[in-house]
């Protein structure tokens, strides 16, 4: 936490965040801040606590200590769906889509309307919904597969679909866990393009291993190691940090 970061209005401020599993501290007194419209990439060796950080922000795991503030709102006490309503969207590491439903239905379910029981019963597939679904489908390269059952998509397409499901929620903070994992080179390129398009008006946190990909998209990079921030800054700065070199190359 640098001096300049104090007192400024951040989209997301994580402070003193700790979570322990039976005494093992997966995340240990972690603090970092994400700016408006910033693309932040979190990297780190396996077991550094990257996914756990995302789990903590979106409410999947409860923090033992510390605070997560999103636009001044404390997230640690909210339930998952309330955090989503506040404007945080999250993509999982393995594509998490509804395999039994069609692409259209996958996107439609993610459309932010009719989110309570009664609303879901009375939900109508009106023009607004259909237009929005088509718009997003176009964006994620799936406009020809709308009626396809999601289980039949390729791995890369599933990743895109999940990104699309987030986009249709129009979150202010988008969190992506390894969005290009398992993709072919061509798909990777398309994904980078897609991310560039969709990150325009929002803040994004990305977890990624692919350094080339990271260099392409990141504004700032945070390196996690053993649940703590090891280094933070631009890609160049981080790459030349001796501590980072030691962690990555030392074993």
């Amino acid at each position, binding site marked *: 936490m640098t001096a300049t970061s104090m007192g400024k209005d951040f989209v997301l401020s994580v402070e003193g965040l700790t979570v322990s599993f039976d005494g093992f501290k997966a995340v240990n007194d972690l603090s970092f801040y994400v700016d408006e419209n910033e693309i932040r990439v979190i990297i780190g060796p396996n077991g550094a606590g990257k996914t756990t950080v995302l789990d903590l922000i979106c409410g*999947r795991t409860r923090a033992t200590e510390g605070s997560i503030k999103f636009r001044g709102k404390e997230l640690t006490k909210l339930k998952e*769906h309330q955090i989503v309503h506040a404007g945080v*969207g999250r993509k999982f590491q393995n594509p998490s889509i509804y395999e039994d439903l*069609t692409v259209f239905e996958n996107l439609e379910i993610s459309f932010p309307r009719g989110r309570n*029981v009664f609303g*879901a019963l009375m939900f109508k597939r009106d023009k607004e919904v259909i237009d929005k679904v088509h718009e997003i489908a176009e964006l994620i390269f799936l406009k020809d597969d709308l*009626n396809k059952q999601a289980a039949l998509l390729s791995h890369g397409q599933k990743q895109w679909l999940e990104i699309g499901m987030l986009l249709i929620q129009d979150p202010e903070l988008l969190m992506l866990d390894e969005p290009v994992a398992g993709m072919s080179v061509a798909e990777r390129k398309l994904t980078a393009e897609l991310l560039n398009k969709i990150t325009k008006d929002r803040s994004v946190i990305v977890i990624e291993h692919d350094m080339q990909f990271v260099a392409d998209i990141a504004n700032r990079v945070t390196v996690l190691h053993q649940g703590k921030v090891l280094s933070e800054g631009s890609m160049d700065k981080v790459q030349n940090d001796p501590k980072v070199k030691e962690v990555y190359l030392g074993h």
Partner: protein
Amino acid sequence: MSYGLRSFLPKNDMINILLLAVLIMVIFPLSMDIFRLNLVGKYLSYAFVALGLVLCWGYGGILSLGQGVFFGLGGYCMAMFLKLEASSPENTAIQSTPGIPDFMDWNQLTALPWFWEPFHSLSFTMIAIIAVPVIFAFIVSVAMFKRRVGGVYFAIITQAIAAILTILIIGQQGYTGGVNGITDLRTLKGWDIRTDEAKYILYFVCCALLIGSILVAQFVRKSKLGRLLVAMRDKEDRVRFSGYDVSNFKIFIFCLAAAFSALGGAMFTLQVGFMSPSFVGIVPSIEMVIFCAVGGRLSLLGAVYGTLLVNWAKTVFSESFPELWLFGLGALFIGVVLAFPNGLAGVYSTYVEPMLAKWLKSLKSARPPMPSSTADSRS
């Protein structure tokens, strides 16, 4: 895609529901005597439970082994009303306290317990038949689903609840009629429900309510809520992170299933003429799951056919081969689960329907086949 009736009731489904309606409301009454028809009526009252299970188990992934509880609560509410009417002071003049049900008199109760009082009113009873089980289901499901108890745990806890309720009903015989249940029910607002004519009318009421319930279930299934249930069964977390409070949907569908079961219980009481704890416990509850599984856990109509088929087989086989019946039922159950997890409906849609479609196509090569959206691809 136009919305409205078409979307909630596609032509295929409409035809299938109509076929069922014709079968149970025209063909059965014409081809059976009232004795057999009354039996079918009893089976159909179980079909309500199976219908509820399709929604909460097939779609919601919530397996309840305690649906007998709701069936029983609905049935007992109905039975309490009928028993009070049958226990008028004139009918019970020989008792030491006339005007209360006979079993209370034997148990030295000298006044009607407070919770029996409102069941003098038919309108209260009608509300209670649905409200009591639903409130109970609501309490149970809020406690469980808000804490994310699911799957196996839910199944076992509902099973324990069924066991508790049975022990309670049997033990508190002064208030409930004990192990014998509430028997000798005669009239509904002066109308003798034991005559053949009444049995016909009750049968048709039962059919009408069943078709109505199927339509309600169909509406839920085809609404976004139905798709959400499928989504939840697959990736519960994803639904949460799409901004839905998953537990509310589970609570809703569980309560709806309870309401269906209760309706079935009330129709059971009316048609059979009594209610007893042997329809509340673990064994009947699991049998109802069997009906649903055999018919197809993802098919509303399949559940109805499954119920009819299993019960019909039970009646026929247990008469001719009582020894073999349990072997048959057990084998059927294992076979369905292992080989046809989607039951009869699954067999129909994977084998029969394509054949039919091919055949129809060869008749007149037009009209593309309807996409089926209910395929279950879980392996």
